[in-house]
Every structure is written in C-alpha cells, then in structure tokens.
C-alpha cells in the first residue's frame, strides 16, 4: 500500500511541478519577449524564406501634417492619400504591417517599390514573404483559400491562376477600389490592352492589378548572325541568306549550322544553335503552344469544348521541336526555366525565346552578350489560307504576374493601395527596371519620352520597338478555371516527347484525355463560355486561319 501511495504521490508531484514549470516558463517568456515588431519578423511559418524588408522607423506622424509629395504621378498620389485617409479614420494605425506573398524572382522589384513606399508612407511597414519557385506561390495561395488564416494580405500570382483563386474565394473583388482610387486603367498611360483587361478580370469583375507583361520575343546573338564569314558559309551550305529567321523551318537550319560550327562561348561552354523551353516543371508548353497556334491550331472546340490539340497542328508543333532538339543543350529538357537565361547571358546559345526580362538580363553590365543581344519577333509558320500561303506570327504571353488582395486580409484596402502605388506609371517603371521578373505593362512607357528613355536604358532601343510589335501579335495564356492544371498536363507530355519517353501521338492523345477530365470537373458549359471569350483575344491572323479551317 505504501508503494502505491508513494507512486501516486510521485505522479501527482511530477504533474504539479510540470504545470508550475510551464506557468513559470510562460511568464518568463512573456516578460522577456522582444518587441512585437521583431516577433512579426521571426515567427512566421508560412514560407521557406521570410525577411522583413521595411520596418517603419521614427515617430509616426499624423496624417494631417504629412502632405502627399509633389512629383508623384496622380495614380501614386491617390494611393498615398488613400492610406492617409485610412489612418485618419482609424482603419489602420501607424505601425501596421502589410504582408506580401511572392516568388523569389520578383524580390528586387518589390523591394524597390517598398523603398519608394517608405518615402511617402513611412507609417506602414511592408513585409515580403518570399517563396522559391513559382508553383509554390500557387500552392500557398490555394492553401490559404482553404485555411483562411489571413497570414498575408497581398499575393502576386500568374494571371492563369486568377480563375482558380477567385473560385476558391481567395481573391477580393477590386471594382469598388478601382472606382474609389482610379489606378489609371484608362487614358494614354493605361496598361497595354487587351492584356491589361484579360489578366485582371474574371467573369466581368476586376480582381487584380497588373504588375507585368510577358510577351515572348526571339533573342539572338547578333554578332554571329551578322558575321560575314558565317553568312557566306551559310549561303554556301544552305543556299539561302543568314538573317533573322521568319519561320521556325528557317531557324532549324540556322540552329543546325551554328551548332555544327562548335563555337566556344566566352564562358568556355559550347555555343548551341537554339534553346527553347522543353523543361519538365512548367515552361515546356510555351514553345509547343507558340508553334501550334501559329500553325493554325485551336486548343478547344468552340462549340463543344472538346480538346483539339490531337491534330495535325499539334503534331507539326512536335515535329518542329524534335527537329530543333539536336541543336539545343540537353538542359533544355531537364533544367529549370532559369537555365535558358543563364546560357544566353553567357553567350552559349544563338537563338532563344523568353520573357522580356531575358533582354533586361542580357543588357546588364555583367552579361557576356550585353552589346550583341538582338531582339526580333517570334518566328512564324507558313500556312495556307484560302489557297494562298500566309506567314502567321504569334507570340505567347505566359505568366503575366498580377497582384491580388486576399479576402482574408485584415487590411484589404491597404493591400490594394500598396498595389496601386507600386504599379503607378512612375513607381511601376522604377520597380520593373530594378528587378528581374516583372516587365513593362503600361502603354505610356513605350510612347512618352520621359518614360521611354528609361525603358530603353533597361531593355535597349531595338527590344522596345520589337516588343511593341510583339504585343500586337500576342495571345493569352489559358486563362480559364483549371488553367494551371491543363497547362501542367501539357508541359509534362511535351517534356516526355522531347525526352523520348513518349511519341507525339501518344502525348497528344494523353493530353486530350487529361483535358477532357479537367473540363468535366469544372463543367463543360462554364468552361466553354470562358474559352469562347478567351478565343476572341487571339491575334486576327490566327483567327483568320481558324475561320478558314472552320474552327471558328
């Protein structure tokens, strides 16, 4: 009996001691914890990398004594005034922290915007929650839609994800804020249309602000293409002129020619004739889709929503890609998207195609091709329309980052105002020129001298001209519900064909079958309505082929 009592007593003593120890520990922890500001930078669990970019310093000033600084564009001024008004009304208080979830590639861009924000709105802190890979942002955004934690206020997303994040309930409708604060979406400095609308609108409502435009252009080594010795040699071998290629067929010959020259880049690596996306993670679909659309292909039937990719145009796109494969570095099939940038900037590829930021990177002082990187329209495909051959050119506009305000944010209006400030004509241009992945999206940056001169400094005169033309032939990404899933399935199959693990016929039929399932999941009628609207946004030349072939 004594032993039992002793055990019970010991147990109760241990239990009591533990409770007391926990209490004392909690008390000590509470009294010794650092200031709240510091805690907010160290206790986040949402991301892989969390860093506070800006913290407000100094004594908070009252809004009535802080004038909106002159020199700012009207759009930015309205954003700053809006923040002051929120503070006046007590909606937010000095020291409020805004949290932005974004991908690592846009960090420098956003840091610039925050640096400028700090000059005008020092009372509001902005924290960046940085994720490493693009799909991570999508995943975190969709998880937030389920968990509703309010752990971030703003998220930057691919425009293709908009349908999903809206339907999942994450994206807050912004029409009221657009009306109240006017982000400058009309007039000569509005975002480039139709990109500005289709990337920010879903089912007729605004849910986002433009941060970017992403139309692809062809980049090439001008020094090699204009070299008289190579020009003569190419003429002798192929019986045609060495010049910027108008078609993919021409590009294949040139890629073969340069690959066989076995040139060595300044980096010491081999110079490959071409590098177009075929990688497994997300970008392989871009190359295939570009050729497919130029060949007159249409993704879905405009009456039934049946996938139309298992078609001659689909096979043609694979044919071109497979012909290019021997002249591309093996990493084109295995490495991540950034490898293309790395190789071009090192001078290791002659022809490549990517987002505008590639040109920005190629113009940096550290680039091996800073003086010899040329820009041109994407190569086209010659197709027969009404009995005559016509060169069809189109340029994909994949990704297109936009900013979305979370429905679960404590400060949605403040989140919107930050986005309006960051994307204003003056601030936005500074932002895109400073970092990597965000690129020009406002019309006046190309037309108004004060902005254009800055743009030319960052991208080069030739690119600015070519980009304006490319915008006119651009086509949207698959901006319908399930867009990321449709494209992920396509990417996987394109990569499989390029790696030789699937033949094109199987890949196309597998993709079509996968797409059917995705369409069924979201409902044929709804998907069809969205696709019909999207199809209207394709370039007129492409639509003329669709009409000639009875697709439209």
């Amino acid at each position, binding site marked *: *009996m004594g032993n039992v009592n002793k055990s019970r007593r010991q147990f109760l003593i241990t239990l009591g001691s533990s409770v007391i120890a926990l209490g004392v520990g909690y008390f000590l922890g509470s009294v010794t914890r650092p200031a709240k500001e510091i805690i907010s930078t160290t206790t986040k669990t949402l991301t892989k990398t969390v860093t506070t970019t800006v913290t407000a310093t100094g004594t908070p000033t009252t809004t009535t004594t802080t004038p909106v600084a002159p020199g700012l564009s009207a759009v930015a001024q309205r954003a700053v005034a809006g923040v002051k008004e929120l503070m006046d009304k007590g909606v937010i208080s000095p020291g409020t922290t805004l949290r932005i979830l974004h991908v690592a590639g846009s960090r420098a861009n956003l840091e610039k915007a925050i640096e400028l924000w700090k000059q005008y709105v020092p009372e509001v802190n902005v924290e960046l929650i940085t994720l490493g890979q693009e799909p991570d942002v999508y995943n975190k955004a969709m998880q937030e839609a389920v968990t509703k934690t309010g752990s971030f206020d703003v998220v930057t997303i691919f425009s293709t994800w908009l349908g999903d994040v809206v339907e999942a309930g994450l994206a807050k409708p912004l029409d009221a804020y657009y009306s109240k604060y006017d982000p400058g979406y009309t007039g000569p400095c509005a975002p480039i249309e139709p990109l500005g609308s289709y990337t920010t609108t879903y089912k007729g409502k605004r849910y986002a602000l433009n941060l970017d435009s992403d139309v692809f252009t062809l980049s090439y080594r001008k020094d090699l293409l204009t070299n008289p010795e190579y020009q003569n040699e190419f003429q002798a071998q192929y019986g045609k002129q060495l010049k910027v290629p108008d078609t993919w067929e021409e590009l294949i010959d040139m890629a073969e020619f340069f690959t066989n020259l076995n040139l060595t880049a300044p980096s010491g690596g081999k110079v490959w004739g071409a590098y177009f996306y075929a990688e497994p993670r997300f970008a392989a679909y871009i190359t295939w889709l570009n050729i497919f659309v130029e060949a007159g292909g249409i993704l879905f039937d405009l009456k039934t929503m049946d996938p139309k990719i298992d078609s001659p145009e689909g096979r043609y796109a694979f044919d071109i890609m497979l012909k290019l494969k021997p002249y591309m570095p093996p990493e084109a099939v295995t490495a991540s998207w950034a490898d293309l940038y790395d190789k071009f900037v090192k001078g290791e590829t002659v022809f490549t195609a990517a987002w505008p930021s590639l040109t920005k990177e190629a113009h940096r002082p550290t680039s091996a091709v800073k003086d010899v990187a040329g820009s041109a329209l994407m190569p086209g495909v010659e197709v027969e329309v009404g009995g005559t051959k016509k060169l069809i050119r189109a340029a994909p506009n994949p990704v297109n980052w936009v900013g979305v305000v979370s429905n679960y944010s404590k400060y949605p209006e403040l989140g919107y105002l930050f986005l309006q400030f960051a994307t204003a004509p003056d601030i936005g241009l500074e932002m895109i020129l400073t970092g990597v992945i965000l690129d020009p999206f406002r019309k006046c940056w190309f037309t108004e001298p004060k902005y254009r001169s800055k743009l030319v400094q960052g991208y080069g005169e030739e690119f600015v001209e070519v980009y304006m033309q490319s915008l006119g032939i651009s086509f949207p990404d698959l901006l319908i519900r399930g867009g990321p899933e449709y494209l992920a399935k396509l990417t996987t199959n394109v990569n499989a064909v390029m*790696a030789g*693990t699937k033949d094109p016929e199987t890949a196309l039929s597998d993709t079509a079958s996968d797409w059917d399932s995705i369409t069924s*999941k979201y409902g044929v009628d709804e998907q069809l309505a969205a696709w019909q609207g999207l199809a209207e946004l394709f370039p007129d030349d492409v639509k003329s082929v669709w009409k000639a072939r009875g697709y439209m």
Partner: protein
Amino acid sequence: MVNRPAPRSIKLLANIPLNLLLFSVLIVPFVLMIYLAFLEWNPASGYDWWKAPITGLTNFKKALEDARFLYSFRLTMIYVVVTVAVEFLLGLALAYLLLEDFPGKKLVIAAVIYPLMLPPVVVATIFYLMFQDYGPINNIFLRSIMGASALNLHWFLRPDTAFITLLIADIWQWTPFIFLIMYSALSAVPKRLVEAAQVLGAGSSTIFWRIRLPLIKPLIIIAVVLRALEAFKVFDYVYIMTGGGPGTSTETVSLYIYRVAIEYHDISYAAAMSLIVLAVIMVVIRAFIWYAFERGE
C-alpha cells in the same frame, strides 16, 4: 511489500494528454482524409469540402485505371527493393568490417554516419549538381576513365540514368542508417558464443552465417522494415533532382500524389490514392513480418 498497479483513474488521467494529441493530429486528419476520398472536391470548385457531393468509390476506381498512378506505384516499388537491398548489403558489410577495434575507428564511424545528418533536400541538391554534364561525376571521375566522351553523358535526359541518380543519392544517404543498426546488433552478439565457436574450430564465415546473423535477425527485420517504409515515401530527391522527369518517367507515387493534391488541387482523388497506397503498404509489410518472424512458429 507488494507492488500493485496504479489505480485505473490515474492511468486514465495520465493518458488523456497523449490521447488528445493523437486524436487531434492523427485520428481527425486520417478520418477526414477517408471522408474526402469519397467526395468530388477541390479548393477551386467554388464550395467548401463539407458541401461537396459524395461520389462513392469513383476516386478509387479512377486510381486503379490511372496509368500514371500505376506506373509511379510500380516505379516506387522498384525503388524500394533496389535501395533497401543495396543499403542493407552495404550497411551490413560496413558494420562487419568495423566490428574489430583499430586506431581511428571512432573517426571512421563518424565519417560513415555523416550523410545521415544531412537533410535530404541538401543531399538532393548536391547530387543534382554532381550529375550535371560538367559536374564532378562526368568531368572528374568518369572523364578520367572514359575520356572526353564522359561529358556527353546526360544523366537527367534518359529515364534509366535519371533513375540511377536517384538510387545513388538514396543509397549514399541511407546506408549509414542500416550500418548503425547492424553495427549495434553485431556488437551486442555475446563474445562468449563467438569464442566458443572459435574453440570448436569454426571459421569466420561459419561464425558469421551460423551465429552472428541468426542472432541479429530481429534487428535486421526492423531495419529493413523501417527503411522500406521510408524509401516508399521518397519525395525530396525526385522533386529536386529530376522533377519526376524526363516526362513522368521517374515520378514516384509520393510525387504524383503531391502533384494531384497540391498542383492540380484534386484533393479527393489524392486522398483516395493515398488510402490505396496505405493499404498496399500495410499488406506488404505485414506479409514480410509474417514471413520473417512468424512463418515457422
């Protein structure tokens, strides 16, 4: 003085925190997963999961007809069999070799178990870089054997070589795990038994096969089962080194379920696949334990 068990009330009281913890972190999510597997729901469907329609066994049927799921499952089984077999043989051999005392033995053991201390994500990144075309495997090791042609070996471009890189990374990191268990087991074999056998004229080989190995059999089973369970969940190496590619040729079942759940947001389907995987693993492991432990009883 007789030791009597503690009263039932104390036992129950003591168990409450643990049961609450287990219930909230294991039972609730598991029950939820089972429920989700019978629904048709994804976060972009526009409604909450508790309002999703019940679709019965549709997701299970779909999984059993999904060629990508079946392929990834088969590939994972091959992965488990190869890695665990090689790791076991290497781990056992290393443990046997390091059984005898020699100067610097502690240092050697520390070096052998070092890979175990690295996070798999770090190991995957290291091996990803090592197997690049101009990485040290091609440029230093194979180049010294094969010459310049080694630089044309594109490890991640072919399904078979890409798969081999995954196996190598796994074996490098997890052989020390088997080694540790085998080393402890072999060290615990009573010396008197070994000495008695030696006195009776048994050779090293006989002692190993007839005395040491039978005595450590229970620990071998534990090591193999634990390692097989872990290997079946392989994700980090595949995600970082090959991304499941080229195509989907190195996509393991964990990566595929991850993609379905997190990238395609087909939560219900992912839950159904997870349950199928769980059921198969339970059956396989149970059969293995029966074969190893209970068959002869």
